[in-house]
């Protein structure tokens, strides 16, 4: 019995289910994507999938377009989200927690439902669906992911730093540019990553809000797997790998900036 209880007491033992989970649902799929991307349907090593991507102008254009959409969405979210986070964190609101919750509230509902509702609203008011609707929908869905990390960093900031800057002769604008903005950089990084990464790979929002008129990179992958049949899986895997690379690069930049970003992200 002693050995059994010592097995249960050990932290190592309790880690095993999670290790199994990670292997089965994270590492193995990644490995499969990797293998599929470099093989043809017969299982032979090939670089053809990547060559197809690079030579198909439609695929490359979609890729660039997707990144552009993600960038614009991120910028809009930053421009809209930073002041909101700043006001929530600094203004002496009686109920800052309620304010923060109101911004988070839409996230309680599945984003597909929200997007479908948005489509219906656009239809109701007779606004044409398309690029504008797509950006609107993306910003609407991802704005909380920008506000929250910035709000968190700003809220943790020592109030006396602002007073110290005023005391040393900084006016309100100088306090913002020389103290508050530099100190909220970790939050901004987290926000950018949390908005940029999912927007690069999104496809459902694009399909619904543009009635399939605009194809994003995510849709391309989805089509490769969903409509292309088994032969297209290898191509889809190659596209996925390219996207993973982009996302990996973004978060790598973020992480190398400083450790606080990581904390904010987590």
């Amino acid at each position: 019995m002693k050995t059994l209880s010592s097995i249960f007491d050990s932290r190592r033992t309790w880690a095993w289910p999670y290790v199994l989970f990670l292997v089965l649902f994270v590492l193995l799929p990644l490995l499969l994507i990797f293998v599929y991307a470099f093989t043809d349907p017969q299982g032979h090593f090939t670089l053809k999938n990547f060559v197809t991507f690079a030579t198909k102008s439609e695929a490359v254009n979609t890729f660039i377009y997707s990144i552009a959409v993600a960038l614009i969405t991120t910028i809009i979210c930053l421009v809209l989200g930073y002041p909101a986070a700043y006001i929530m964190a600094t203004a002496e609101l009686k109920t800052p927690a309620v304010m923060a919750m109101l911004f988070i509230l839409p996230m309680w509902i599945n984003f597909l439902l929200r997007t479908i509702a948005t489509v219906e609203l656009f239809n109701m008011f007779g606004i044409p669906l398309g690029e504008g609707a797509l950006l609107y929908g993306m910003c609407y869905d991802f704005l909380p992911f920008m506000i929250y990390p910035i709000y968190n960093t700003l809220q943790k900031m020592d109030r006396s730093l602002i007073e110290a800057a005023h005391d040393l002769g900084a006016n309100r604008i100088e306090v913002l540019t020389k103290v508050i903005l530099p100190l909220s950089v970790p939050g901004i990084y987290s926000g950018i990553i949390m908005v940029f990464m999912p927007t690069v790979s999104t496809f459902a929002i694009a399909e619904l809000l543009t009635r399939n008129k605009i194809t994003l990179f995510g849709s391309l992958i989805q089509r490769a797997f969903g409509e292309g049949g088994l032969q297209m899986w290898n191509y889809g895997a190659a596209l996925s790998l390219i996207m993973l690379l982009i996302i990996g690069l973004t978060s790598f930049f973020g992480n190398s900036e400083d450790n606080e970003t990581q904390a904010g992200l987590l």
Partner: protein
Amino acid sequence: MSKKDYLIEVRHVSKQFEDGKYALNDVSLQVKKGEFVTILGPSGCGKTTLLRCIAGFQVASEGDILLNGEDVTNMPPHKRPVNTVFQKYALFPHLNVFENVAFGLKLKKMADDVILKKVKQALKTVGMSDYEFRDVDSLSGGQQQRVAIARAIVNQPEVLLLDEPLAALDLKMRKDMQLELKEMHKKLGITFIYVTHDQEEALTLSDRVVVMCEGKIQQIGTPTDIYNEPQNCFVADFIGESNILSAVMIKDRKVKFCDQEFDCIDEGFGENTPVDVVVRPEDIYIWDAALEKRGKVEGQDDVDPDDRVPKGKFTKWYGTVTSCIFKGVHYEMTVQTDNGYEFMVQDYHEFLPDTKVGMLVKPEDIQVMKKEHYIYNHFEGEVLKNNKVRFLDADWDVEPKQLEGFNVGDAVDVLVPFRSIDLQDHEEEGVISGEVHFILYKGNHYHLTIRTDEGYDLYVNTNDVWDDGDRCGILIEPKAIKLAKA
């Protein structure tokens, strides 16, 4: 007041918060150029609020603040020629030591070579010359505070405001920094306004000390004045150790306490006036009474080997040592007199518990203070039906004969003796409830200030031991309540 007289003038400044409480209540203060002024008081006394009003972080609700004769009451902080050193340093974590110190100069758009020279000079002043390019987070608390001081003085402000700058440092470091601050003050010639709750720090550093309590200035004076001639019980109790006793001023230069008459040097209190006296524990001379009784004359070697006790006709009193604690430089004894008074005495000699001792104090060491309130609490009241009177927002029973000559609805003055208020451990047992707000030990009883939940203060004399902040129920004996025409 002309422009030259004072650098800072605070005129009748009050600061009221949203809940109606006053953080500052009619505070007036003048500071001369080059002075080192300390604002001293317990936490919540308004000292930091006063500093923040001078710095501009808070705006006074009433009154004016003048800097160099110019009204700055509503001027934003970045336009004032003052700089602040914050309690928790408030160094910018995204900047290194050099950039922190240069922050103010860069905002003034100074040339780079001037900035470099000034920053180096400031860092040298605070002894941080080799730390220019260090990350501020890598510095110790003391080093961070030095950088914070350099960041403030580099701007050559007319006034340097220091908000408990040493509170976060350990004792040894604090002592060192105190000396350095004093040196810096001399060298720089800048006016220092220093906020602290540490009375020793205030006495060590300042040219003048401002003692504050509950938003009001209690006393302004040099450290010696504040220590030797406290103006009221709060100051006497807060600064240093003290024996505070209720006394009666028999006539000029004659005061009675502990059932004995003493010569003193105070005049002008009138005859038979109730007063408070303060006797500092180190001013009491103490000797072994047994030696005296054995026929040996006091003042001779056996009784007083060091010839410490002054000779002459002084009033002596006797008691038994109940405790003796070694305090490093001296011993601290508690002496209980036969008639029930307790004295704290400090002496270089040890007198063990149960020793019968004699004590005396020189007339000039007895500090007589006016009593701010005595014997009775005064309240405004209203006569109700059924032998009840309403005051302190509650209805109280009174003796029917007290009500003779009054009609229902009459406004009355209510007098309640300090001794007749009965404090209950359980607040629900009282007619009203409150909190112990201030405790003063008067030698043989405690004088408590109780703040009721409705915000009234009442004074209670009791032999029971209470702690600051204790909750209590309040009862008043009906026959002790006296009424007078309003």
